[in-house]
């Protein structure tokens, strides 16, 4: 079962989230997913620390705005959120119960770069999923051993997205999630075993939308966005430690998360979109924190050569003679280290 839980943050903004639960399997089998606004790191060949969370994106049921969204979205079902062109996002995962989570962008697996393979978990060197808990956030495509290539939204149809570069088509866009819970009996074993928790959470500041900019009043004809590759973020995608047979793969839930062009959000929903994203230069010059996640002792997946070979959003834009701003080097002066346990995601983001 998937629920869209909507909440307003006490000091403004949204705390909307998806809650995947499997009550037929276990009452503890609950995974929360939130989509975080953030900075787009410069695409300058350098690796950057984890950018902050600047508030959750608002989430809406596609069904609630059925007449104002593309027909394909109605067919897909699911939810939608608004993004500005060239805006980045990261995904926050929160669960105590173990899950395997497949993440796709335009139905291209974000870990392997392969086309979406419904229902199948692959392990070892071909690992095509994330493990939660453990992977508290995912900032981008798995481009290398300890590097992700930031998720950057662009309108579909201009060749910027990973999907278009791999398939030649701008068919799906958006993000896809598929969640597989651990077998009940394995969870019961974990609960019975004693766990020695010695690490302490290092609290971080709660960062809210710091700088607001006026949106352009321009409404794109087709509001669908997809994800392309942005700059490099120092981040490991953790290798799985559970065996594939430990997951209850016959219990699975999936969700299509459509990315709507923020400039069309008001026409679709009647609501103002979030303001334009905070420029990375302004944030960094203000001395505000970035993050590093050093605590994990687990190995990282190798990353996908197929994804590494693709052009970034900046490279596609340059080839079109329409260079993307915001790719000059910045030097984060303040990098806060996140502890591994219990939940580093909370210190990096709101709520």
């Amino acid at each position, binding site marked *: *079962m*998937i*629920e*869209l839980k909507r909440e307003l943050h006490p000091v403004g903004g949204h705390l909307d989230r*998806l809650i995947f639960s499997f009550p037929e399997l276990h009452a503890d089998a609950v995974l929360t997913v939130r989509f975080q606004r953030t900075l787009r790191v410069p695409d300058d060949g350098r690796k950057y620390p984890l950018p902050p969370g600047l508030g959750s994106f608002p989430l809406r*049921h*596609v*069904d609630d705005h059925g007449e104002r969204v593309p027909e394909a979205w*109605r*067919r*897909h*079902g*699911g*939810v939608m959120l608004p993004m500005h062109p060239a805006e980045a996002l990261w995904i926050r995962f929160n669960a105590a119960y173990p899950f395997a989570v497949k993440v796709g962008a335009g*139905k291209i697996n974000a870990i392997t770069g392969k086309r979406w393979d419904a229902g199948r978990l692959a392990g070892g060197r071909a690992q095509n999923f994330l493990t939660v808990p453990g992977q508290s956030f995912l900032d981008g495509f798995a481009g290398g051993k300890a590097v992700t290539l930031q998720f950057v939204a662009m309108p579909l149809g201009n060749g910027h997205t990973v999907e278009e570069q791999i398939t030649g088509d701008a068919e*799906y866009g958006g993000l*896809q999630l598929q969640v597989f819970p651990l077998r009940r009996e394995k969870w019961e074993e974990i609960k019975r075993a004693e766990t020695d928790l010695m690490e302490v959470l290092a609290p971080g500041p709660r960062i809210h939308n710091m700088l607001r900019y006026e949106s352009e009043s321009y409404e794109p004809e087709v509001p669908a966005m997809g994800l392309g590759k942005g700059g490099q973020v120092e981040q490991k995608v953790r290798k799985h430690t559970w065996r594939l047979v430990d997951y209850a793969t016959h219990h699975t*839930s*999936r*969700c*299509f998360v459509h990315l709507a062009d923020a400039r069309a959000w008001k026409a679709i929903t009647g609501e103002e979109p979030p303001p334009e994203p905070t420029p990375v230069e302004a944030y960094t010059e203000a001395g505000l924190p970035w993050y590093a996640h050093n605590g994990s002792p687990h190995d990282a997946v190798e990353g996908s050569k197929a994804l590494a070979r693709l052009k970034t959003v900046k490279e596609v834009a340059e080839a079109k003679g329409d260079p993307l701003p915001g790719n000059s080097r910045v030097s984060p002066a303040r990098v806060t280290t996140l502890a591994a346990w219990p939940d580093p995601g909370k210190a990096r983001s709101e709520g």
Partner: protein
Amino acid sequence: MSLTELGRYLRERRLELETSDRDYSASRLARRIGKSPAFISQVERGEARSAPAEETLVAWADDLGLDRDVVLALAGKISADLHETIRKRPRLFAQLLRELQDLPDHAVLRLVREVRDGEW
């Protein structure tokens, strides 16, 4: 429809507030919600011929810090916005209410809207 229960509910709450604040006398309450003291007294004693108008009940509930929907329900009414919601899909809500009417509170409050998964 007996308005005795409504009257008793409003009176008990007003008297409770009046013990620490004289602004909750019948005459002062009446002035604030735009009615006469006699009207307040009549409703509180359950002697009104018919339920007060929705606007009056809402103002009365707000003034005493009571839940509007509870006060309206005691008066045999539902708020205009709920009325409109039901009116748009009467069959659905009638069926829903009938199915839920005997469930305990905690079961009803766990009604969850699922995200629909389609074809992709």
